């Protein structure tokens, strides 16, 4: 789950990392803000500054207009529900600092650069500090960071900072924590200028997460709204392979859908409702290989869901695995055939689909 900047900064503050003095605004608020103020659109995407999503207001008479403009501004398809209003920092230098997970080595890495800001990717690849950080080496990493930033007088401060961001990262089940820029102010304080955080959805059970962009159902993805064949499969791999096979057979897949292990009627009804909104849909290919799920459950869900949608295009169903025989009985009672292989489904679908 990707957090908005103000949400990430709240988590940073809770872990005693300094952030600018701030408040959040919603539409139709009448804010009392001390000027100058930096207004930042809270959208779940990058490239915000270049798109005009950050405004510095020095004068009270421009404030309301700036707020209205930012609420109206769409950035890469996202319009903000919230603005972040922050004090303007007196910047001496901007650094880069992040924690991320190296998934191959299975360890947390600290990545730093002396030059932060929006152009950080322009820095030479080998000019970064990129080291493992764990609960056992925090002091040493803080020392290395101070050496790397060439701020020997700030060693203790940077050791504390590393300890605090590490704590923030682990206690919140983060997979990314990026402070860019990490502002060093003229009065020699480190303050998080901007922050991007991503949390592990799998860990939601042990947190009380209330964020604006709750995990969206990534299981249904529209690939081509003008496609002729819709696909439903279980397991991300099989769902991708089904899309690949439809395309390989010369038809145009409209969507990707992984119904996962829990295949119930509601999931299928919701899927069918989205599929029938595609204007050129002429066939639905259902490809389920049941291991942890059971074919008879899937068959019952298909029958129940089919009854709830009037204008459903023909279904081409391939079901295999646990409790297959029971599924054949359920579907044949409704006059719905099960085909033996995905190739048979595609060949049969091809008869119905005119491009």
């Amino acid at each position, binding site marked *: 789950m990707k957090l908005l900047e103000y949400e990430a900064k709240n988590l940073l503050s809770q872990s005693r990392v300094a952030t600018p003095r701030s408040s959040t605004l919603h539409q139709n608020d009448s804010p009392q803000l001390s000027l100058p103020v930096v207004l930042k659109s809270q959208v779940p995407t990058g490239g915000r500054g270049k798109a005009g999503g950050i405004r510095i207001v020095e004068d009270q008479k421009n404030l309301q207009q700036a707020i209205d403009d930012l609420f109206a501004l769409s950035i890469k398809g996202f319009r903000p529900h919230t603005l972040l209003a922050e004090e303007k920092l007196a910047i001496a230098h901007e650094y880069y600092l992040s924690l*991320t997970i190296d998934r191959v080595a299975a*360890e947390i890495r600290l990545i730093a650069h002396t030059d932060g800001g929006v152009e950080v*990717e322009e820095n030479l690849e080998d000019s970064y500090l990129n080291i493992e950080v764990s609960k056992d080496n925090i002091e040493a990493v803080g020392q290395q960071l101070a050496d790397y930033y060439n701020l020997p007088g700030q060693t203790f401060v940077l050791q504390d900072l590393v300890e605090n961001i590490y704590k923030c990262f682990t206690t919140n089940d983060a997979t990314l924590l990026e402070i860019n820029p990490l502002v060093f102010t003229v009065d020699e304080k480190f303050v998080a200028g901007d922050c991007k955080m991503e949390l592990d959805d799998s860990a939601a059970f042990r947190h009380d997460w209330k964020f604006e962009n709750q995990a969206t159902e990534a299981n249904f993805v529209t690939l081509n709204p003008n496609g002729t064949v819709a696909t439903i499969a279980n*397991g991300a791999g099989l769902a*991708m392979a089904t899309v690949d096979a439809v395309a*390989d057979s010369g038809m145009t897949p409209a969507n990707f859908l992984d119904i996962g292990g829990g295949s119930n009627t509601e999931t299928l009804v919701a899927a069918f409702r989205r599929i029938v909104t595609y204007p050129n849909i002429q066939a639905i290919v259902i490809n389920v290989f049941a291991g942890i799920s059971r074919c008879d459950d899937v068959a019952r869900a298909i029958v129940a869901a089919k009854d709830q949608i009037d204008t459903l295009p023909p279904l081409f169903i391939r079901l295999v695995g646990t409790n297959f025989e029971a599924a054949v009985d359920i579907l044949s009672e409704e006059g719905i055939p099960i085909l033996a292989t995905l190739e048979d489904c595609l060949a049969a679908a091809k008869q119905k689909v005119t491009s």
Partner: protein
Amino acid sequence: MKPTLFSAKNIIVQGITGSHGRFQTKAMLTTGTNVVAGTTPGKGGQVVEGVPVYDSIADIQKEHPVDTTVVFVPAPFAKLAILEAITAHIPLIVCITEGVPIHDMLEIRKRLKNSDSVLIGPNSPGVIIPGVNKLGIIPANMSLPGRTALVSRSGTLTYETMAGLSARGIGQRYVIGIGGDRIRGTDFIDCLELFEHDPDVDTIVLIGEIGGTDEQLAADYIASSVKKPVFAYVAGHHAPVGVQLGHAGAILGTTDESADAKTDALKRAGAHTATSITQLIQLISKWASGNVKND
């Protein structure tokens, strides 16, 4: 990993009293897999499908040796279950559980280093050694004993490929689902190494997916260390690639994680590559019939 790791006979199920644990224990027993005991804390003394339940692995080990554990414990408790198995020095841990948090896996991977245990998974369909052992949820009736070794990141594609091979009379020596999560106990390379060195394997099949760099690393290993023929399919040629947040990913390395890029890497490493499962099975089938003639 050694071939004998997967053929051991003293198998337990952690989380045996849950609905998946119970159902799948029955399926494992039906195929002749020797499930000797199971655990669920607080439910010691119960019996599931004729298998005695204990509170802990330590309790089982007072009465039986344990070679392999299959973990069905729900995600919030999976870390403790896996750490319990590592502490008990169980040689093979197969974790079926889906949704184990990444930070839990970081801790598990640290504990696996210098341990006596191999972990397959999490989020794995398990392992089948056809005719020998079913360790997990892969439908055994679709498998066929033989000399092909299959490794996959995807559960359902594992079944699909295995069933397709069996239907054409191509049997399997190993079917291993390493799991769909990015951080896991065993990767492609561990399996490729096992397959390359097992004289009972003559063909290798690798099923990958978009995302991550596992297939690129596998390709490097194939190029340097695998002489047996490798057939590969990477799912997701038509899938949208995820949007990356922040700069850290790009700074760590700008590897192309698309199916096309991974397929190219595998092809350059000498693997026979396909753009769909159907095509993959045709390729293997053709090679198998040609190879039989050469013998």
